[in-house]
C-alpha cells in the first residue's frame, strides 16, 4: 500500500516536471524564433537574473515590504468581507443597501482605483488600498452566497429549538458559508498580488516589487522584468498553498 502510494506520488511529480520542461522548451523555441532579447528574453537569462536578484540583500527587503502590503490588503478585505457579508447575507435590507457599492467596485477598472488612491494616499498606502478595494467585493459576494446557502431545514430546526443568534451564527451560518469564504479568499490571493503590483508600478513606493518592474521596463531589461514577475507568481502560489493547507481547502477540486 505504502509502496503503491509512493509510486503514484513519484508518477505525479514525474508528470509535473515533464510539463514544466515542455513549457520551458516552448519558451526557448519562441525565443529562438523571435531572436530579439529586448522583446523576449531566453529562459536561461531569466533564471540567471532571478537567482542574481535573489542573492541581493535589498531584494528580500523589497519582497518583504510588498508581501506586507499584499497581506494587509488580503487580511483587511477577508475580515471585512466576511463580517459585512454575513450581516448582509442575513439581512436583506442591509444587502440592498450595500450591494450597489459592491457592484460599482466590481466593475471599476483597477487603474481607476489606483489613480484615485494616488490622489488620496501616500505612495506606500496606495497598493494596500487598491488591493483591498479589488478583493473586498469578491469576499463579500462569496460570503453572502455562503450564508444564503444555509439549509432552510436546519434554520427551521434551530429557530424551533430557540437556538440563540450568536450560536446560530457560529454553528450554522458560518460553517455553511465556510466553503464559499475559502473559495473566495483563495481567488483573491492572486488578484491581490496583481492589484498591489500594478498599484506599486503607478504609485512607485521606493522599496517595492512594482517599482522594480517599472525600473526593468525603463532600463529595457525584459529578463529583469520576467524575473520580478516570476517572484510575484511564486509568492502568490505560496500564499494560496499556505491558505489552502491552513483552511483544509482542496485547491484542485474546491472541496473542504
Amino acid at each position, binding site marked *: 500500500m505504502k509502496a503503491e502510494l509512493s509510486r503514484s506520488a513519484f508518477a505525479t511529480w514525474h508528470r509535473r516536471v515533464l510539463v514544466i520542461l515542455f513549457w520551458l522548451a516552448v519558451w526557448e523555441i519562441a525565443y529562438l524564433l523571435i531572436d530579439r532579447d529586448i522583446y523576449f528574453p531566453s529562459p536561461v537569462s531569466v533564471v540567471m537574473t532571478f537567482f542574481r536578484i535573489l542573492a541581493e540583500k535589498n531584494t528580500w527587503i523589497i519582497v518583504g515590504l510588498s508581501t506586507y502590503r499584499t497581506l494587509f490588503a488580503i487580511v483587511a478585505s477577508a475580515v471585512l468581507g466576511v463580517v459585512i457579508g454575513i450581516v448582509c447575507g442575513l439581512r436583506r435590507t442591509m444587502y440592498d443597501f450595500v450591494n450597489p457599492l459592491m457592484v460599482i467596485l466590481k466593475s471599476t477598472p483597477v487603474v481607476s482605483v489606483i489613480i484615485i488612491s494616488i490622489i488620496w494616499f501616500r505612495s506606500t498606502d496606495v497598493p494596500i488600498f487598491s488591493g483591498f478595494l479589488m478583493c473586498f467585493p469578491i469576499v463579500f459576494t462569496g460570503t453572502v452566497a455562503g450564508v444564503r446557502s444555509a439549509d432552510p431545514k436546519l434554520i*427551521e430546526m434551530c429557530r*424551533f429549538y*430557540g437556538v440563540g443568534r450568536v450560536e446560530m451564527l457560529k454553528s*450554522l451560518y458560518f*460553517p455553511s458559508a465556510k466553503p464559499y469564504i475559502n473559495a473566495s479568499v483563495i481567488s483573491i490571493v492572486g488578484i491581490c498580488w496583481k492589484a498591489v503590483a500594478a498599484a506599486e508600478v503607478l504609485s512607485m513606493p521606493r522599496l517595492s516589487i512594482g517599482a522594480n518592474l517599472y525600473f526593468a521596463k525603463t532600463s529595457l531589461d525584459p529578463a529583469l522584468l520576467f524575473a520580478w514577475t516570476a517572484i510575484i507568481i511564486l509568492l502568490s502560489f505560496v500564499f494560496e498553498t499556505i491558505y489552502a493547507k491552513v483552511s483544509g481547502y482542496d485547491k484542485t477540486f474546491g472541496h473542504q
Partner: protein
Amino acid sequence: MIKLLDISKKYGGKELFSHFTAEFKEHEVTCILGASGVGKTTLINIIAGIVPPDGGRVVFETDGKERVLRGSYVFQEHRLLPWLDVHDNLELVLKNVRKSDGRGYTKEERAELIRKQLKLVGLEAYEFSDINELSGGMVQRVALCRAFLYPSELLFLDEPFKEQDPKLKDELYETFFRAYENDPLRRTVLSVTHDIPEALRLADTIIILSGSPVKIAGSYEKSEFSEELTEKIKELL
C-alpha cells in the same frame, strides 16, 4: 389540553383546512393518521407554531388556564448539523435554555444531561462521534435524544421512522418508549404517520384525517384497538 379552534389554511389555492376544530389530550401519545398529502404535517406545524394558520387559533390549556408551551420536534429528516459531533448537536439546543430560576445550564450540567439522555437511547459510546459516521437509525436516535433532552411540554413527531426498514423501526420504537417512559416531563406527544401498525403501536389515541378540506374521520382510544379497527381505519383512509 390542546385545542384547535376554527383553523383555516390554504396552500397554493387549495383549501387544506376550513374551520377545523380538534382537541388533543395532555400527557399521552396521539397519532394523527392520514394518507400522504392530506395535511398531517401542516396540522402539526400549525400546532408547533412553525406554520401560521390563515384563520383560527391554537390554545394550550391546563386546569382551565391558557398557557404558552414549549415544544420539541423530531422531523422527517434528522436535521442534525453535519459538521458538529453528537455531543455538540445535543448541546446546541440546551445553550439558550433557562431553568425555572432564570439561569442557564452550566457546561457541566449540560454534559451531564446529554450523557444521561444518550444512555437512555443507547448511544453513550457515540457521544463524540461525527454525525456522518453514524448509521441512519443511530442518527434518528440522536434526533429523538435531542427532542427529549430539550425541556418542553409538547413533542412533535413528523414520521421520523418513515425511511427505516422494519427491524430498525422496531428498535426505534423501543428507543422512543424507553425515552418516553423515563421522561420526567411527561410530555404530550403528537405524532404524524400514514403507517397504521406504527400508529397502533405508539398511540394512546388515534385520530384519522381525510377529505379535502380535512375532516376528522374517526378518533379511537387504545382500549378500542383491534384487528377490526385496523380494517376500519384502512377503509377510512
